[in-house]
Structure formats: C-alpha cells, structure tokens
C-alpha cells in the first residue's frame, strides 16, 4: 500500500489543534462539491450555508439556542468517552429529562413561585440521570455492552414519551393535540431575545468540566482509566465507579438540556419531539471538540450553524434541509480521519 503510518514518539500538540481545522476545511470542500453537483454555484452555496446565518442578529440568537443542548451534552459525553465509557443514548436521556420536567406543570400547575424553576430543572437532571443509570447498572452488574443498551433506551424513551404525552399527560383543553399544558410564569426560563438561561448553564458546565478534567483528581482518574485501565486499577481507581459517574454526569447534563429546552423554547411537551435528535449530533460535538469539554463550546456552536445553514439552504437554494445531516456525518468522518495525524506521521511510499 502506498500510504504508510509511522507512529510519532509523542502526540503532536500542533496537530491536535490543527487537525479539527483540517477536518472543517475538508468538509467545506465536500460541501462545495455537493452544491456544484446540485447546480448551485459552490461559493454562493457555501456563503448561504455557513456565512449568511451569521450576518443576521436573529439568526445569531437562534444559533446560540441550538448550541445550548449540544454543548451541555457534548461536554458530558466528551468526558465519558475520554474515560472509555460509551454512552450514546444522550438522546433518550434528554427526552426523559424533558418528561420529568413536564410532570410539575402538568400535575402541579398552580405551583407558581420562584422555587418552581429550580425544581423543574432538578427534575430534568434527575430524569436524565435515572435513565442513564440503567445501562450503567447493566454494564457493571451484568457486563452488558453499554453502547447497545444505552442506544436501545433511546427508542424506549421515545415511545414512553409519546405514550405519556398523547395519553395521561395530555392537555385536556388542548383540542386533542398531542401536547401538554403550556408552561407559564416561573415555569419558564428567563430569556433575552431568543436566548434563554440554558445558554449560561452550557457555558458554566463546559468550563467547569474543563477545569475538572485537567485540574482535579477526578478528571485525572477518568483520563487514566480511559487511556491506561491497568495503570488506573493499580492506582486504586475503580472502573465501576467511573462507569456510574460518567453515565450519571452525561445523563444528568442531557436531562438538563431537555429541561432547559422545554422550559426555554417550546414551553410545553409535544410529540413528536425533535430536540432528542441533538443527542446524536452531540456525539459529533464531543469529537470535534477533541473530547475536551471546553472544546465542546466551539464545536457546539459550529454544529448549531450547520442546522441553520440547512434551513437556509432549503429556503434560498431549494436543497432539502437533510443536507445538514450529511454535512454533520461527513464532518465527524473527517474529524476521525484527521485525528490520525496527531499520533501518526503519514508517509507515502512508492511501490517496490
């Protein structure tokens, strides 16, 4: 094979910073090719998709709103993946978080004082944690693959959510629409324009997790268990505790993302509910941020932009907004491919 990889003596820190940028550049080239194949001028297409949304104040706010759940989940997943704990069910944890949040306005609609807001947020976190602890328990207790079980829980969460919002939790005065009562007053998050308090949570959480990862013993413990499990065990770190911790953390943050989404954006539960799909995009956020919780802030914003660009492409270029999913998938591909550059030197060999 003409292409050969040579292991670097140590990981290249330049490449660690440059490789996500190369991945983004490659994705843009891919995007240009897609636009060209659809008969759209590539420069115009890229401008409409990636630049125009940023020139508009309203769209900038939208971007932050969409980035909020992505950053919350991406930061938590980044740490879990670092510890080699593969929670890919953030989507379900978000959905159950939203469901738990909705219990308060549905069953205690008269609870209207400042205490209801933190109570609802807490419910969201609890919902996410409980849902995430199921695969964690099955992994620790029965050695069941957490990738598969956490993913199965996504489908189950969606069906349970659909059942409850169509059935027991439906708004009796809602003209039979599959939705709950509206959240009002203190049951909603304060907002500035479209941006709600959740954006602040996302920022604080990402920075806090970044601090924990690189400056606290817990972070060191997780990184060690992830990169050198044997060394971690000799140091007395418990792999089982790490599994519980990572699932609870990433699940709780997904629950918080769900709570702030329904309290800050939709102000009700409705089915079908589209935000859980962000749980899968958050996986891309985590990897594009190089599994660094602080990096998730930037990658979360970029992935949010791909959603807005998709909508822009639909309205002004007449390209289906499904293109957003393609760009997101391709981006993850290039990110993973470029990661190779951090640990290996690529050499081209002429055939002998």
């Amino acid at each position: 094979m003409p292409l050969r990889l040579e292991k670097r003596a140590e990981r290249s820190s330049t490449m660690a910073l440059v490789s996500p940028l190369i991945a983004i550049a490659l994705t843009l080239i891919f995007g240009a090719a897609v636009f060209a194949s659809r008969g759209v001028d590539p420069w115009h297409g890229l401008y409409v998709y990636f630049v125009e949304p940023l020139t508009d104040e309203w769209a900038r706010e939208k971007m932050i709103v969409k980035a909020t759940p992505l950053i919350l989940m991406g930061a938590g997943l980044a740490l879990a993946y670092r510890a080699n704990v593969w929670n890919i069910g953030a989507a379900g944890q978000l959905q159950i978080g939203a469901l738990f949040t909705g219990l308060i306005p549905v069953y205690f609609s008269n609870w209207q004082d400042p205490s209801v807001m933190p109570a609802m947020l807490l419910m969201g976190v609890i919902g996410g944690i409980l849902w995430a602890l199921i695969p964690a328990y099955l992994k620790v207790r029965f050695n069941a693959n957490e990738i598969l079980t956490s993913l199965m829980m996504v489908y189950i969460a969606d069906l349970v959510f659909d059942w409850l919002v169509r059935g027991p939790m439906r708004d009796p005065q809602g003209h039979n629409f599959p939705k709950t009562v509206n959240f009002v007053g203190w049951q909603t998050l304060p907002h500035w324009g479209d941006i709600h308090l959740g954006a602040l949570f996302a920022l604080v959480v990402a920075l806090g997790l970044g601090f924990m990862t690189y400056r606290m013993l817990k972070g060191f413990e997780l990184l060690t268990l992830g990169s050198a499990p044997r060394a971690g065990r000799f140091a007395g770190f418990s792999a089982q505790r790490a599994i519980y911790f990572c699932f609870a953390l990433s699940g709780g943050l997904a629950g918080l993302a769900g709570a702030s989404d329904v309290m800050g954006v939709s102000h009700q539960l409705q089915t079908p509910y589209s935000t859980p799909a962000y749980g899968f995009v958050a996986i891309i956020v985590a990897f594009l941020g190089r599994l660094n919780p602080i990096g998730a802030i930037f990658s979360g914003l970029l992935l949010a932009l791909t959603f807005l660009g998709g909508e822009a492409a639909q309205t002004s270029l007449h390209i289906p907004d499904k293109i957003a999913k393609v760009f997101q998938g391709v981006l993850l591909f290039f990110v993973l491919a470029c990661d190779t550059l951090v640990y290996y030197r690529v050499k081209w060999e002429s055939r002998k």
Partner: protein
Amino acid sequence: MEQLWAIAITIIAASTPLLIAAIGELVSERSGVLNLGVEGMMIMGAVAGFGATYLTGSSAVGIFASMLAGAGMAMLFGFLTLTLLANQVATGLAITLLGIGLSALIGENFVGKQIERLPNFHGIDILIIFSFVLVGLVSWFLFRTRYGLMVRAVGDSHTSAHSMGFSVVGLRYACVAFGGACAGLAGGYLSIADTPQWVENMTAGRGWIALALVVFATWLPKRVVLGAYLFGTISILAFVVQTMGLNVPPQLLSCTPYLVTIVALVLISRNKRVLRANTPACLGQAFVADR
C-alpha cells in the same frame, strides 16, 4: 390454518433482515473488526435498493445496488479504521450518522413512490431462502476452509497471524466489505421485499439489534438463526397480542424488540465464561504492522 401461516410469514419477514445483517457483522467481528455502522449501512442499502428498483424496474438490480451501497459504506469504514487506524467505535457511529443523513437526502425523491414487490411464493421469496443458504455458507467457510481459519486467526491474534505471513489488513477489508454487503442486503430486503416503499429511517434500529444478536449468538453462525427468529417471533407476538384486544398502549408494545434486546444482552453477557470462550480476542483493536 390460514391465519397461522400469515403470522408465520410475518415472523419470517421480521427475522430475515436481522439474520442477514447479523451474519455479515459476525464475519466482520470474527476478523476482529467491530463495525457499529450496521444501522447506517442498512439504511443506505434500503434507499439504494428501492431507488435502483424504482429507476430500472428490476428488483434484481435493486438487490445488487443495496449490497453495493452497504459494501461501499463498509469500505469507507475500513479505510478509516484499518488504514488510518481511527477508533472503531467512533467510526461506526459516524457511518450510522452519515448513512441516516445521506439516505434521507437521496431518498427525498422516492418518498411515496411505488415499486413492484419482490416476487414470492405464498410469502416466501428468494431472499428468505438465501438467508439460510448464507448462514450455511458462512458456517462452512469459517470452520471448514483455510481462508476461514485465517480469518479467525486474524481476529484472535493479529500479531501472530501477521508473523505467519497473513495479510491482516487485507483479510479484514474483505470481511468488513462482506459485512457491509450483508447489511445493505438486509436493508434492501426491507424496502424491496418486506414493505415495497421508502420511508426515512425505515430500519428503525434493526441494525443495532443485529449487532446485539451477534453477541447473543456468541459469534456462532447457527445460533444467529436461533437468535434472529426468537427475536422476530417475540416482536411479532407482541402485535398479535394487541389484535386480540389486550388493553396495552401500542407504544409500550412497540418497545418489545428493544426491551428484548436488552434482556438478551444481559442474559448472555452475565456469563463471562461463555463470552470469553468465543469472543474474538482482538475485537475492536487497531493493528499496526511492525514490519
């Protein structure tokens, strides 16, 4: 009798795609490659199979296209994990996310279109028969041929296989491509033979269930048949129960396949001895030749 046969046919139809996808993934995992992209390859197979049948009017072309699409996605996976040594778990997820997005984009023009269903005899079509032939062939290949032994050797100890002069990466590429073609075919079965139409996300997690089936079968081809049919039967019976007028919300009945998957994984995984005896030792590990 008529009714029982109808139920039996739906069970077979539900089990066949799981069987085909799982047997392909089994070969890939036997060579030491964990490809979590089954769902993505399957959905690409579904859209390619439907599209090709719709455009050419021939279901044979459709079946071929679905296999090609699955194998194509698998080669992409192979390039990243085998040549560029990227993390297999992450790359598998990437394949799935990309497959779901790409199929939705490609399939945009096929929504609501009709094609002729794959011809069948009392509900039994060629792919159902082929799925059993496939299991037999894979079983024979893995345990009765030289190449099969090589594949297992590569999966169990890639360094020793390499020092014996086997091409680790070459064999793995072949196995991954085979797994992809099977996943694609399983998707094609859904859109050409089972319900002849294209619906976004129509695989609905079957690719993931197939992955779980491989674990459930402890990497033995014949047990995949057992697993797939057990699975198909339970998920169909859940709906039969519903038609009998049991008052359970339909959403909760629809949870059955996913719940069964979890239960099956738990039951098999708790027995570490059984698992360790059959799990390919190098599953999921990257291989770098040290010359």
